[in-house]
């Protein structure tokens, strides 16, 4: 599973951190997303998918075709 984030679209609501704290964090300065792990283990697929769906800014994307 490969994860991409687009900090320009991030509105800093922190939904990703709540959904998958192992994979996402927020910058202290402006709350925008920090990707802790761009290729998280398959065991976290549910959490990461949750973060994608919960992100209000559409800032998180799972790379097509990555084995999940």
């Amino acid at each position, binding site marked *: 599973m490969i994860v991409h984030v687009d900090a320009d679209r991030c*509105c*800093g*609501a*922190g*939904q990703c*951190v*709540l959904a998958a704290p192992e994979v996402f*964090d*927020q*910058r*202290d*300065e*402006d*709350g*925008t997303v920090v990707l802790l792990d761009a290729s998280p283990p398959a065991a976290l697929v549910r959490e990461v998918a*949750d973060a994608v*769906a*919960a992100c*209000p*800014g*559409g800032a998180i994307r799972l790379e097509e075709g990555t084995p999940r």
Partner: protein
Amino acid sequence: MATATTTHPAPRGTCPFAPPPAYRQAGPDEPVSKVALWDGTPCWLVTRHQEAREVLADPRFSADATRPGFPFLSAAARHLGGGKTSFIRMDDPEHGRLRRMLTGDFTIRKTAALRPAVQQVADELFEKMTTGRTGADLVADFALPLPSLVICLLLGVPYQDHEFFQRCSRTLLRRDSPIEEVVAAQDELTAYLDALTDHKRTHPDDGILSRLVARGELATEDIGAMGRLLLIAGHETTANMTALSVLALLRHPDQLAHLRAHPEATPAAVEELLRWLSIVQSGVTRVATEDAEIGGVLIRAGEGVICQINAANRDEQRYPDGDALDLTRDTRRHLAFGFGVHQCLGQPLARLELEIALDTLLRRLPGLRLAVPFEEIRFRHEMTVYGIESLPVAW
């Protein structure tokens, strides 16, 4: 747009916690319907979860109230025309530029670090409310002062002025306030926050207003407008959520018993209460800037849209048996804080305050009960944010 059959706001039905039945009669085959606003203006009403998310995430729907066609939900709101409302009524990139000056203050980590301070505020209010007493008004003595004290602390606003700003924000949030009163409240609050902001220029502290001043990027009136937005949004919402949550739990003894037996379930309970109560009863308004198809309906550029959060959060397709308060259900993706780039900035704080408020009250007052018949509780039908005026309880 053809003529509408339903008016907005529609009256609530027999259950004071449930959204107005008229919003939901639209039903599964009509995700987007027409309503008439208070002055007869037609507007689109989105009542389903999927479509509400689509609209709120779609940049073709603008939050800028100065654009033609923006739906105003009261005469006073139209009169103010979205003036001085800060970034909640702006679009990106300007919205994002201003919002990002604050997001660092409301991250999950920053907010979690506030827990001891918020707990201390709650403990002090609790002591004052309960010492030597067997009953209180939970709104005046606990639910309202808790978030008011916290947002004052964060912004650097003196809490001693709370009666003033609470009165102004109530006037601003009433749909039926006379225009002159709303203008006066807006002007008073603006003058107050502008003066406070200027004061911070010479008397800096570590509050948000001072830090916005220190950035040197914003005029006093822009900082004042942000301060007003945070001050109003930061206390009215959580205060009403707290009071309504306690009332809802007292009316659902099985759910209350579950929560008391499982203290670790408080965060999940807060999410379900947010969904079930969906207190932003006005819905969230946008105007289309281009033609856009939503739920099979063509919305034309310049037409207004209301995303009816309380109906969407009980959409049976997303939340089976959505009318039931079930603290154990899967509440993910509820829309109580909105969706899209305007999704509530203060949500981590609201969650923290609600958790602490419920924990403090329920654990320490095992005999908590209503002190008046349920029928005597007055619900705030005329407010943008739903709630109750007072909640007489005993223990």
